């Protein structure tokens, strides 16, 4: 699921028609300016709101900050939106849905990672069920740091995104280099449940594994796992009643 962070230069098909029309080439720069102005000033937001940052994001839409000032409306369906704000921790169970929702958004689209959980996973980073940063799932344009960021930082983040869109359209910005974590990402070895390409034997094996509780005995994952979390004998000895003294 490595993310393609290549330059995204989506152009509406109407541009082609406009450019072919005689006498319009001079006007194109002006038209471009107007279109750029409209694109930056009407950033409709799709809130991918999962946890704490969601509350601060709502606060940003409420009285004190009010992101509606710069024309940002929150719409609950991805089809109407330009910016996806990922606010909160994304888990392994949720990540495929985020990817799907991102793909349902129409181009041109941007993504903002709000809060340290969405940026890197924060202190849940190393936990089995948490995605270490949403930029391993979708390409991120602006990071808003904080845990959670203050509501006014959301407004600032949107304004930074406006700057980025302007510079991208004017051709003065370059895409950042790929994050090392993203480059190291591996493709899913096994297809997910429900995928027609998934080996049916695999499903049966996993089913059995969880049924007879033979966890950690014969799966590849157990071999790869570093046993940081495994209990030591001293730990176990501390627990009353676990060590059979007889």
């Amino acid at each position: 699921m490595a993310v393609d962070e290549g330059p995204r230069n989506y152009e509406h098909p109407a541009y082609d028609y406009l450019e072919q029309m005689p006498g319009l080439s001079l006007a194109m720069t002006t038209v471009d300016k107007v279109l750029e102005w409209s694109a930056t000033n009407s950033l409709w937001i799709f809130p991918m709101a999962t946890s704490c940052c969601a509350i601060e994001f709502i606060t940003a839409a409420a009285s004190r900050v009010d992101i509606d000032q710069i024309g940002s409306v929150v719409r609950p369906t991805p089809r109407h939106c330009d910016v996806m704000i990922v606010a909160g921790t994304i888990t392994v169970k949720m990540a495929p849905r985020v990817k799907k929702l991102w793909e349902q958004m129409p181009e041109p689209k941007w993504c903002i990672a709000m809060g340290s959980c969405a940026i890197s996973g924060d202190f849940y980073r190393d936990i089995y069920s948490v995605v270490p940063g949403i930029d391993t799932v979708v390409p991120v344009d602006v990071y808003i740091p904080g845990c959670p960021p203050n509501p006014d930082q959301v407004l600032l983040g949107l304004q930074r995104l406006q700057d980025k869109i302007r510079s991208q359209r004017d051709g003065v910005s370059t895409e950042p280099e790929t994050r090392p974590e993203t480059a190291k990402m591996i493709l899913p070895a096994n297809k997910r449940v429900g995928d027609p390409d998934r080996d049916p034997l695999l499903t049966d094996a996993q089913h059995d594994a969880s049924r007879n509780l033979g966890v950690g005995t014969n799966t590849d994952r157990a071999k790869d796992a570093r046993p940081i979390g495994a209990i030591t004998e001293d730990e176990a000895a501390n627990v009353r009643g676990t060590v059979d003294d007889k």
Partner: protein
Amino acid sequence: MRTFPARVDPHFDIEEYDPEADLMALNMGPQHPSTHGVFRIKLFLDGETIVKAVGYPGYLHRGVEKLCEKLTYVQITPIFDKHDYVAPMTNEQAVNMAFEKLLGLEVPMRARVLRTILAELQRIASHLLWLGTFTLDIGGTIGGGASLMMYTFREREMILDLFEMLTGCRFHYNTHSPGGNRHDIPEGWETAVKAVLDAIEPRLDEYDALCDNDIFLVRTKDIGVLPPDLALELGQTGPVLRGSGIDHDLRRDAPYHAYDLVNVKVAVDDGCDCLARYRVRVAEMRESLRLVRELLTMIPGGPIIGSKPIKSLVQFKAAKGQVYVGIETPRGELGTYLIGGGDQRGAAPYRLKIRPPSLHAVAAVEYLLPGHMLSDVVTVLGSLDPIMGEVDR
């Protein structure tokens, strides 16, 4: 004696339903504007009437319990801030009280009174947020609900400002620790609290008036009826249980902090429906306002944290055993089942089980939804006030 309809069997086989019916399976969530986060409900609809509802939590499972096994007691508090992100103060208190009970630490009186004030302020803030999002569910994001939400967020900001004065943080405070509090009351804080209480009190009446209209009543009355016996069996606590007519509040029935110093009047409503839960929460806000006013006059002097050095881990060496501590958060009984002695030095929990009130509340949707219309899903779910960070942990 009020009679309730027969209990729904949430495990009934959908194949056995009327074969003539044209059923539609509709997935709500995990990304849906009204599921309060990332909850997913699978609905089987006959027309617009719900035949069966199946809940799927877990889209925000962050492995907090596993993480706590790797951290020492003092390191766990900031994790707990993120867990019920609408009421972080009471979360910190819940887990720290479990540690104090296991380690045998005494909390100074000043810290106890301060904790009570913080808990009550947090209760007002949390219920204000709930009121806003509940009306948002009924009234829509472009509608009357949004207007009320903006108002309640204005008042919630005032309380967050108070917390920011005290701890320096808007949201995740990390102000409690085993044995006491970190941040002492700053100068002028009491006056600021009084000013905020005076500002909020008249506005609560306005919100009551905004909700006292026929549309709100027909949308909430007799919707999501939860009989008292089922509420107890499901382990409902807090406003959901009291909205089912059961007079149970840990602040009065099993006092902790400084609740034995004040007389807590428990709001109970035996309507058992969404409207009853709404009434209980609004009455609780007024009661909390009164409690904070009363407690502000009785803050004693003295230290805010126990004399034992909490940062030294050596003293926790003997911390073994298993304790359960539950306190009354805005959503109900937040309990911590703690098995001590995980680390080599005994400074970390061996196993820490959080008892989230929201998980119990949200489990009730399978019982409450069948028989209702599609529009009632959001009303019922909103009235249960689930916080997904707490449900999934």
